[in-house]
């Protein structure tokens, strides 16, 4: 085991995959210079951990022009003809520039062509929300892509999950989109040194409990953990489930948990309408209706754009206070949990629905 950051774990998975299979290539903007820290060692230890460009050469580490449509399309075409590309799209908001290629080529080619194509390609992108980057860099667009059958959607919330899920993504013969929250980049934990793969469609039970189930996504996972710790002091026992992959979704684990707890809160940093939280809520309402003892509550980012000012942005995403508030509402008890900065905002109550 080695203590790794979220980014370091991604770099480790990429390095292992590059070493294991010469068909794996990395293409994207600024990957040669390791600007985002996943194509070589980071900071002062860059050389210690191996520089990808030196290790694998320009044939397999390719800097691209700023041309998302052809980056994505060419990666699809290359995957259809023998490569296994990892595409680093840097910001998740840049995916929209290539929407046609994601929706009309990546997702549809295997299906339309009757199974002739397999498309083993991974599209990595980082969600820079919560970092005062303004509306063009703060998107959490994974629900849009959940709505496109044919894509697999991965949302790692911890370093060890980031490594194991990325390795599975690279080994998968279908197009995979991984959405990495920058708020988690610095998270550190012990990560296995050996190669390992985490299967898609297998949720992680982050914490066991009996009163309420929280399904938490991406950066909402550590916030849900903080909320659960405070609630435990008040005698409320919370179970936290991180689906880890939204397509495929581990419905069984979620349903089993709700059948025990009878209550569900879904914490999801994406927008509310037609989001991951909405889909999970609908599935549970349909399949575990008899078990529910309270309405399902979604804690999401309200349906507004992301403002620049920290004073405006900070309140918008699910945090320990808003998650804990939702829990107290489903259990019918009034307990207040403050955020780290002492704030206690319940924006999701007041946001336009």
């Amino acid at each position, binding site marked *: 085991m080695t203590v790794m950051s979220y980014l370091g774990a991604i770099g480790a998975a990429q390095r292992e995959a590059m070493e294991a299979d010469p*068909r794996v290539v990395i293409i994207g903007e600024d990957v040669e210079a390791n600007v985002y820290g996943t194509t070589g060692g980071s900071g002062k230890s860059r050389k210690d951990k191996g520089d990808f460009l030196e290790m694998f050469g320009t044939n397999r580490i390719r800097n691209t022009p700023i*041309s998302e449509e052809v980056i994505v*399309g*060419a990666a699809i*075409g290359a995957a259809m003809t023998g*490569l296994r590309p990892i595409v680093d799209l840097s910001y998740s908001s840049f995916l929209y520039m290539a929407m046609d290629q994601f929706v009309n*080529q990546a997702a549809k*080619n*295997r299906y339309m062509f009757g199974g002739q194509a397999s498309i083993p390609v991974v599209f990595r992108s980082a969600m820079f929300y919560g970092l005062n980057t303004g509306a063009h860099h703060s998107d959490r667009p994974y629900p849009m892509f959940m709505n496109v059958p044919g894509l697999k959607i991965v949302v790692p919330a911890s370093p060890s999950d980031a490594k194991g899920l990325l390795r599975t993504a690279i080994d998968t013969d279908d197009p995979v989109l991984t959405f990495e929250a920058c708020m988690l980049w610095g998270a550190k934990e012990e990560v296995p040194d050996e190669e390992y793969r985490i299967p898609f469609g297998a949720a992680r039970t982050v914490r066991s409990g009996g009163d309420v189930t929280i399904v938490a996504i991406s950066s909402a996972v550590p916030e849900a953990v903080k909320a659960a710790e405070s609630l435990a002091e008040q005698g409320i026992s919370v179970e936290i489930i991180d689906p880890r992959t939204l397509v495929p979704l581990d419905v069984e684990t979620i349903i089993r948990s709700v059948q025990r707890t009878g209550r569900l809160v879904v914490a999801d940093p994406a927008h509310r309408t037609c989001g991951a939280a909405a889909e999970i809520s609908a599935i549970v309402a349909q399949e575990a209706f008899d078990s529910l003892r309270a309405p399902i509550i979604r804690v999401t980012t309200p349906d507004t754009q992301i403002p620049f000012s920290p004073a405006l942005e900070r309140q918008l995403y699910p945090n320990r206070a808003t998650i804990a508030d939702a829990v107290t509402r489903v259990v019918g008890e009034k307990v207040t949990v403050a955020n780290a900065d002492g704030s206690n905002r319940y924006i999701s109550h007041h946001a336009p629905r």
Partner: protein
Amino acid sequence: MELPADTLLEMQRRMLRIRRFDERASRMVKRGQIPGTVHTSIGQEAQVVGACMALGDQDYMSGNHRSHGHPIGKGSPLGPLMAELVGKSGGVCGGKGGSLHLADFNVGSLGESGIVGSSIPIAVGAGLASKTLDNGRVALAFFGDGAANQGCLYEGMNIAGVWKLPVIFLCENNQYALSTPAHTVTSGVIADRAAGFGMPGVRVENGQDVLAVYDATKAAVDRARNGGGPSLVEVVTYRFNEHSEGLRIGTDYRDQDERANWLARDPIVLFREKLIADGVAKADEMDAMEAEVLEEVEEAVRFTDASPFPDPSVAFKDLYTEPIGARP
């Protein structure tokens, strides 16, 4: 370029296949035997076949909505193509693609696209794989004069140029994007745009001459295969039919004299005359070839008729390489 007689005859045979296949498909659309519509390559056979035959069997291509000619030109058998147009289980895509989305990976056909320009990056990617794996294959992207104004073409030309990928950008300039004359929406000459990306750009003015198309494309293919990088080839041609079969447009957007002049330059008639004049084949041999192709198309229809429609469960197959998703 001097070509052996059997290659010349194969060119004519493939052009005939496209013509007779598309004529049959057109009739089937009008009789309701093909659901939806089709876009025929009638009139553009020289442009299609000249380009396809400049490729090797292992080479890749991607195409567009005017879709039947490309796989036929690359050597795909007619039966599964016709069955696909009707939506039968014996279709080349099992009935899930249809006319707009034909693909036959056995002949390097990576797929036709219903989105104008969308398949250009796919061919660029095939070129990237060929270069990275050093397997000697080249990739050709077919696109029309309409797609020549899509941004993905220029992103593709730039990246193929800077990476020196073995890609041929082949513009099928039939001069109309549906009803819109290309010159009214296209600034400058399409072939000239290659210069901006540091690659050769040639314009084949007589796209009804299969050998002219072949020569220009072959030069680009040879260059790509030898590590010289991408090229742009613009072929000027004309579609004889309407944009799509059964389409009725109130306005007469094509000049009657212009249309008559192009109809008089039928690529199949012209090449037949040349083959006979050059002593490659006699008239009765050409007649026999035409009869054989007609029979081949009828056989494709019989294949289609004999093929059952797919089981409804097929709608839920092939989305992923493993069974996931599609909850009731």
